[in-house]
């Protein structure tokens, strides 16, 4: 197992006390696995991703362990994390389009980045960077440009090259395709696959609200709802045989090419997720769930109902138990 996360909880400090945005989340990632993490805004998916890289002043770890390649990742200790960033874990931030400083050319920016991470053999790294730039079809002269001279898709791809330059074990890609046109989206998605196949990255967590992108690039998908994991399984299983009512509703609400309003009427999910300040006890999807029953006032465990298929839902646990 290249990455294992056990009962990780992350809270934001606030005037009303701690707000737990990530609540006892556990999952593992195999070598070479790209896991998609999907959920609505406010579900805690970006918080989870950011926590694995940098806990800022507002955040704190309230429990749990993260292990990467068998070693514990000291996510609560910002100083100890410093040498591990970029080499062990790396992030492609949300809004990566604006992640590149406008005052430095890409080459200078890269060199500053490498220096600050104490990398000695910078010439070798640069040679490798040029190879990767050529691989994905960019011209080498992007290095001598300012970020604003590049198109959005180019900037996104340069940011991914930078984040993966030191071959991190785990790459966290936060909404890398959301702001792009369909054709560029596909190019960026395929680039992630290619980088995984070439072992530039060992495993990746792709955070997005767009399930159809994940269906293209992810090996497994985890669905997050109001700070907790609802379901995790292989991409095929999530897309074709989802068990959690939330996942089912989410999949059913997606329009596909070829579906027209006069043939099929798609359905949204009524209601909205509960506030994470004093969340209700029990299953958090209860209020919007068509199958909710008395047992749902207790918190459902996130358990493995079939090999490799984890679900947190009483209804599913009961049905599987009966079989």
């Amino acid at each position, binding site marked *: 197992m290249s990455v294992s996360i056990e009962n990780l909880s992350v809270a934001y400090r606030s005037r009303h006390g701690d707000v737990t945005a990530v609540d006892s989340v556990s999952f593992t990632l195999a070598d070479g696995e790209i896991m998609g993490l999907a959920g*609505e*805004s406010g579900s805690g998916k970006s918080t989870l991703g950011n926590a694995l890289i940098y806990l800022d002043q507002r955040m704190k770890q309230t429990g749990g362990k993260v292990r990467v390649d068998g070693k514990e990742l000291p996510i609560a200790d910002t100083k100890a994390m410093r040498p591990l960033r970029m080499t062990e874990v790396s992030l492609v931030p949300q809004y990566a389009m604006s992640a590149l400083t406008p005052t430095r050319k890409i080459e200078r920016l890269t060199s500053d980045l490498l220096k600050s991470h104490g990398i000695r053999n910078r010439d070798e790294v640069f*040679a490798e960077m*040029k*190879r990767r*730039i*050529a*691989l*994905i*079809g*960019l*011209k*080498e002269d992007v290095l001598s440009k300012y970020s604003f*001279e*590049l*198109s*959005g*898709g*180019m900037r996104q791809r340069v940011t991914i090259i930078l984040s993966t330059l030191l071959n991190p074990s785990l790459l966290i890609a936060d909404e890398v395709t959301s702001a792009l*046109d*369909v*054709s*560029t*989206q*596909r*190019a960026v*998605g*395929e*680039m992630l*696959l*290619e980088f995984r*196949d070439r072992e530039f990255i060992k495993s990746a967590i792709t955070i997005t*609200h*767009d*399930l*159809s*992108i994940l*269906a*293209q690039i992810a090996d497994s998908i985890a669905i997050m709802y109001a700070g907790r994991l609802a379901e995790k399984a292989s991409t095929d299983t999530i*897309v*074709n045989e989802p068990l959690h009512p939330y996942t089912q*509703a*989410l*999949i059913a*609400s*997606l*329009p*596909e*090419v*070829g*579906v*027209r*309003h006069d043939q099929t*009427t*798609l*359905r*949204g*999910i009524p209601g*909205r997720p509960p506030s994470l300040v004093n969340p209700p006890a029990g299953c958090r999807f209860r209020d919007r769930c068509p199958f909710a029953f008395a047992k749902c006032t207790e918190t459902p465990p996130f358990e493995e109902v079939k090999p490799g298929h984890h679900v947190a839902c009483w209804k599913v646990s009961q049905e599987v138990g009966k079989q």
Partner: protein
Amino acid sequence: MSTLKVDQVSKLFRATSRAGGFTPALRKVSFELKPGEVISLIGESGSGKTTIGKVVLRLVQPTSGTVTFDGKDIAKYSQHGLRDYYRHVQGVFQDPFSSYNPIYRADRVFQLVREVYFRGVSDKDWSHKIDEALDAVALNPGDVLGKYPHQLSGGQQQRLLIARALLLDVKVLVADEIISMLDASTRVDVLNLLVKLKRSGLAILFVTHDLSLGNYVSDRTIILRHGAIAEMGATAKVFGNPQHDYTRMLLSAVPELHKKWQHTALGPVAVGSDGSAVATDIIESAPNGHVAPALAHASLLDEQAHAEHVVKRDFRARFGGSKAASTGKSAVAVALEPPPLNEFEPDHWVAEPE
């Protein structure tokens, strides 16, 4: 019949750089929007789709061409006439979070409409009218009235803005990427709302970059590329039997749940004697000369963006200054000349390749 007619509309934006130059954002775009019809305008960034919406809302003045509503040229409206025009034509935009002033309650958007259009209406009639509008967008008045914007979800905010448009006698709604910032679970509700409004006779110009959403709601589709129409026609025909290479490329790149992209692994990078990468054409360096079409397309887009910077956005380099010289037309006229549209089958127009 309140038909909105866009006729040969072009828009040139002047570049702000010192070197000057122009960007042709729209090139002689023509179409008609009939009552009860949804047209989706689909295109990538820079294709001019938002500019069309703005021209229709009279937020941008076209360089040439006219927009007529009910047979009247909208450019000729003066203040009073314009007020009447906005009574019938309204817009809702992408980001609901920045459409509201966070200091005021969200329902102030209704109050502003009342101050301009419904001064004589009594409080009782007004609240009745609001209830009706909220009912049409499936919002519960108790859930949204008197709340601040941050207390509402994105879907509620967006529906509130549509309700605001419905207070007026709205005939045409310009919906510019109105659901791209919403969560998947609430997106469909807004889409279904548009379908419902369309059935009651509202004409909708649905601007989007998402092909599956466009396909779901629209009757007719316009695919825009570099400000000109690439393909236009009944949605079933454009999506079912795409004729333009660009439309096909877009469709092949749409991520679908049940169909995987064909990912072709990239070939080895050519390495020179000093160990550094040798720049090659991506098309040539790929195994058996075949690359993923999306990657190839993306790099073409990059080349174009790059070329634009090199010539400081001088449109002449992009659109052939030599052609201008040989035909005796001005460079601007050549730059604004769209590729000719041919009728492929009834209600299905395809542009010639550029």
